[in-house]
């Protein structure tokens, strides 16, 4: 069993590397430039500074730009390299000074096709420096929110893996579909024209989305995975199919939704509500409450209901479940429908928290896998605990490590925990004999 898990994990990781490789390289070829906005902090407002002179020196470039009435300046440098950007302090209007008069010159690396922003801080700082503890509290709250959202998606992934053995790489796209369908339905900007439809209230749209997600889950099993299973398709082959499906859906969504990032109009720019040192929008608090209630309901269903117990039985031993009189295909169908709806809900909540784009789900796929593996493959409660750990770690670790490395940290902890507990946090070592 442990060996099977290790093999599954290894294949999963290597396949993931392939997918990541395929997903990368969407660069656009434009010239390189350095730009910035010069704004003076004055009484809590930022006032654009016009007429200031900024010089950019570097390989083959010695150019001076002047800020316009919005404070913007741009220098086209034409090729990658390291450039020195200097602000002429004498050109600043009266009463405007650099926050740090010594830092009037910066060395800036520019990579291919990059429009590099460079900022000079003017005036007195408006930022209230938070204590480390306050920051940690804030990040923990955000981490919990993120972890709960991952948990919603990961529980479905784990149940599908448990009952069918499928490592479903297209689970991320189920998350994306949830987010995007909710945006389509709520704003009325459908990819197909539906005359007279102008969108609906967001909560109604969310309910419609979940119904559609249930249908998508049903179709997944009825039209694709069920037939593959009956034909005895191997698990590795099925995993490759799921990678293909993932790519297909992702780029179909790119075509239909476009590559830009959007937000649900109902939740754009909500004002934060303070609870102690934590500031989150009302939508965030409600999202967390919804996630907790739904996850508790799932846990109750798994532990106490007849269908939930049957689901665990099928995860343990499908052949024996069938021999006990359990309709295994029916259980798997239910798991697909419920798993897709949970993923869709995760997508909607993630869309509220950080905006919607065509690979919002793919971006958390790796974290879902990490959560599922961390908690113990195939155990739904493991997925829940693993998700919270991953979500918290990814977010809180930005206190000490650069934000760009946060996902790396989560995978690092995955490796360390699996070295100590190969069966995962909640996975149980089985007695043999």
């Amino acid at each position, binding site marked *: 069993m442990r060996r099977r898990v290790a093999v599954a994990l290894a294949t999963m990781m290597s396949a993931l590397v392939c997918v990541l490789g395929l997903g990368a390289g969407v660069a656009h070829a434009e010239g390189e430039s350095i730009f910035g906005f010069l704004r003076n902090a004055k009484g809590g407002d930022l006032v654009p500074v016009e007429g200031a002179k900024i010089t950019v020196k570097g390989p083959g470039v010695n150019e001076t730009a002047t800020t316009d009435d919005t404070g913007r300046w741009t220098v086209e440098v034409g090729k990658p390299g390291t450039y020195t950007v200097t602000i002429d302090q004498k050109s600043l209007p009266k009463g405007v000074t650099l926050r740090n008069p010594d830092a009037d010159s910066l060395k800036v690396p520019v990579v291919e096709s990059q429009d590099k922003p460079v900022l000079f801080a003017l005036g007195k700082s408006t930022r209230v420096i938070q204590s480390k503890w306050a920051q940690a509290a804030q990040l923990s709250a955000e981490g919990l929110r993120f972890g709960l959202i991952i948990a919603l998606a990961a529980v479905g992934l784990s149940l599908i893996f448990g009952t069918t053995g499928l490592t479903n790489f297209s689970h991320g796209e189920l998350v994306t579909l949830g987010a995007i369908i909710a945006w389509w339905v709520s704003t009325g900007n459908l990819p197909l024209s539906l005359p007279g439809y102008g969108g609906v209230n967001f909560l109604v749209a969310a309910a419609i989305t979940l119904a559609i997600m249930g249908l998508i889950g049903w179709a997944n099993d009825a039209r694709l995975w069920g037939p593959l299973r009956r034909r005895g398709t191997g698990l590795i082959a099925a995993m490759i199919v799921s990678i293909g499906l993932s790519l297909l859906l992702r780029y179909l969504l790119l075509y239909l939704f476009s590559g830009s990032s959007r937000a649900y109009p109902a939740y754009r720019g909500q004002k934060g509500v303070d609870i102690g040192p934590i500031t989150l929008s009302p939508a965030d608090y409600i999202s967390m409450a919804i996630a907790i209630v739904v996850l508790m309901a799932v846990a109750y269903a798994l532990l106490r209901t*007849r269908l939930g*117990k*049957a689901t*665990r*039985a099928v*995860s*343990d*031993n499908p*052949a*024996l*479940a*069938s*021999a*006990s*009189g*359990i*309709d*295994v295909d029916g259980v798997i169908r239910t798991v697909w429908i419920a798993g897709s709806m949970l993923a869709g809900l995760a997508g909607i909540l993630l869309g509220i928290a950080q905006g919607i784009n065509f690979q919002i789900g793919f971006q958390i796929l790796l974290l879902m896998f990490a959560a599922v593996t961390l908690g113990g493959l195939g*155990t739904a409660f493991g997925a829940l605990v693993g998700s919270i750990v991953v979500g918290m770690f990814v977010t809180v670790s930005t206190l000490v490590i650069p934000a760009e490395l946060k996902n790396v940290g989560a995978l690092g902890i995955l490796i360390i925990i699996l070295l100590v507990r190969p069966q995962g946090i909640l996975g*149980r070592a*089985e*007695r043999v*004999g």
Partner: protein
Amino acid sequence: MTTQQGSDDRPRTDSGTEAGADSGTDRGVHERAAGNALLRADEVIAGYVPGVNILNGCDFYVDDGELVGIIGPNGAGKSTLLKAIFGLIKVSSGTITLRGEDITGQKANQLVTKGVGFVPQTNNVFPSLTIEENLQMGVFQAPKKFKQSFEFVTGLFPALGDRRAQRAGSLSGGERQMVAMGRALMMEPSVLLLDEPSAGLSPALQDEVFVRTRQINRAGVSVIMVEQNARRCLQICDRGYVLDQGRNAYTASGKDLSNDPKVIELYLGTLAKA
């Protein structure tokens, strides 16, 4: 075309005068004896992969209340026969009937409701479920039966009732076997199929399994058991089958089979003579 049972190339006994082992090799005898059978299989041909048959025209029957043992060398098709009866593998030819109803090719979960119970040889419990939940899965299709059946099963295996909240994955092999038998008994089957219930157990535990099996049978459940431990199996059986190359080579009472010189030589080993 009829199968040529008892043809010259297969082992025969010399004690043909008595109603002994030899009588079972005749299809006519099977036809007559199986007339009122609870469960019977006729000329069953089945296998795991197309073109490779494990069962080659196997005849079999069990009467109400009977305890029937199936023995035979490795690869004879003992377990395959149970799986074919229980709808776990495809039967390509022949029929299986339960109380006169043709059940050939029906799925396992349908057979459970018709009163057939099956205990696989390995992986026969749900390890992450508790003992009680394992037994609940046994009556998945008839949850109302749980209370009554639970009392019956825990009466038979008191240890299961005392440790109902323990996870089955933490049990020993013998304890798991009890959970597995208990689960199969929950639907109050009229016939129970046991696939090598004593495999991998210590001699003491093996003995317990045989005693329990006899107990279950006495409670009114017909039992078909496949066993490697042929001698012990034949001791408790009402009737036994010796399977060879996917056909029943002999059938006779357990006692007759254990004393049959040919069976001893071929399947029981010389030690049994002593």
